[in-house]
């Protein structure tokens, strides 16, 4: 039987494209063994070391109860901001995405697919962090659903920012900027050091950072047993609602 090439062009429905794109991005993420290992293991190591009181004093009653939400926030930031930005930046550099730019796939669906793939990886990552936390004596206080909502919002906010960076500057600049931003946000963005340690004026400003919103929200839920904390959730929602469309708008394929 021979194939007929009689033209019948039309784009697939966006949701079908999104499902296919997410599946492919996830497969490629998982196929990159060393990278997956690092993504999954580094937060566990950080969880272990941050839990050691010899590093610095946190002034919290139970150190591990502070550490787990912080590491969860850190893991989201690492995978969906730093990891996604660098990976995507180099895909652009090596003209991987240029070819996709000549298909019916829209920027929006591509970027959503990438973010959804990272989100699925993060479910696995969060489960491992929580399990390891329990081993270290963690007593979670709040609802899983609220924490999950925060993680999803955080993934879209950080994913949007990472893709905006990756889609607009050179890969080498993305590499440097994503790592630098990660480090700064880790210490000055309310993850490793509670914002309460900062002067009030600084804390009031820093609290609007996505890292602080995610970390603060997770602490409120998991450490202090709050329901879905409104301000952090809204802050992340706004970051996501601005960054993702901006990334789709300004993303350049090559």
């Amino acid at each position, binding site marked *: 039987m021979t*194939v007929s090439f009689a033209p019948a*062009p039309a784009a*697939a429905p966006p949701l079908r*494209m999104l499902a296919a794109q997410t599946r492919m991005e996830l497969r490629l993420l998982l196929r990159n063994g060393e990278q997956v290992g690092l993504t999954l293991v580094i937060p566990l190591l950080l969880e272990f070391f941050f839990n050691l009181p010899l590093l610095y004093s946190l002034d919290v009653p139970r150190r591990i109860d502070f550490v787990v939400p912080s590491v969860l926030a850190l893991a989201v930031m690492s995978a969906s901001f730093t990891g996604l930005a660098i990976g995507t930046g180099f895909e652009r550099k090596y003209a*991987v995405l*240029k070819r996709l730019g000549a*298909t*019916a796939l829209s920027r929006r669906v591509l970027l959503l697919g990438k973010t959804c793939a990272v989100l699925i990886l993060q479910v696995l990552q969060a489960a491992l962090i929580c399990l390891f936390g329990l081993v270290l004596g963690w007593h979670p206080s709040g609802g899983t659903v609220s924490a999950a909502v925060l993680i999803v919002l955080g993934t879209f906010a950080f994913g949007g920012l990472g893709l905006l960076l990756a889609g607009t500057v050179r890969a080498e600049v993305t590499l440097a900027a994503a790592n630098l931003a990660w480090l700064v946000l880790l210490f000055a963005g309310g993850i490793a050091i509670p914002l309460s340690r900062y002067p009030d004026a600084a804390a009031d400003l820093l609290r609007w950072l996505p890292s602080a919103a995610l970390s603060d929200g997770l602490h409120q839920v998991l450490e202090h047993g709050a329901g879905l904390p409104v301000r952090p959730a809204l802050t992340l929602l706004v970051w996501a609602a601005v960054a993702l469309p901006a990334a789709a708008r300004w993303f350049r394929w090559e």
Partner: protein
Amino acid sequence: MSAAVEITDLVKRYAGRPAVDGISLTVPRGHLLALLGTNGAGKTTTIEICEGFRRPDGGQVRVLGLDPLRDGTVLRPKVGVMLQGGVGGYTGARALELLQLFGSYAAHPLDAAGLLAEVGLAEVAGTPVKRLSGGQQQRLSLAMALISRPELLFLDEPTTGMDPQARRGTWDLIRRLRRDGVSIVLSTHYLDEAEQLADSVVMLHAGRIVAEGSPAELIQAGSAGQVRFSGPAGLPVAELRAALPAGVQVSEPATGCYLVAGEVTPALLAGITSWCAARNVLAEGLSVERRSLEDVFLDLTRTGR
């Protein structure tokens, strides 16, 4: 219905230097146009402007009646693209997987496994793209351009890096595409490829069109051929030329080898032989040579027009 591609006075500069310098051409629906030229002639720039990757500095481009930049969302699903130099897309993916991904972007895609077999890659369906040979990558790239069943194809140097057998197979496939009603623009620097496949050929040199027409027209254009013979060294070529019809050139490119270039007519042959007979010269190995597209191309690009 609008033409498949319509380009008017296209100009594109890189850092002030024109890469494309005032090109106009039309590709009717269902036709195959070959853009022929050396590296740097402006082929890829022209194609990438049609694909919406680059913004022209001047002139107009209409692809299927649409503006590639402004109407990209409507246009892209209708067009298949093969970029120059390798597959593009995720090189960590397996061949079939990547083809299926591209199929999932289309509403009525061809069957991925069947198409992979069509381009001769069934045995490497599970091989990561980056481990395919250059020629295999080219064939996968062609399949990726076809799977959405486009009505117009842009193939940028489709057979570069293929072995002769794969090249023939690809030519057959391209002929079938044309038969099935797909409009095609392909760039190449292989003259035989243009001669074999194209309805019309546009020769580019330094960003300008230096010749255009069907392969047959191009070969006939200008001087139609040449006559070659050998004889004693140092015959008076100027005398011979004077004895022949106007517009003919005579030269002795190597000692004792003579070349008469011009429109080859019975009168020309008679003129040569009678001139030789009058001097008792035996014109050995007298042969009439047809000019190939290659001769035309080399002439046009050598003069640096």
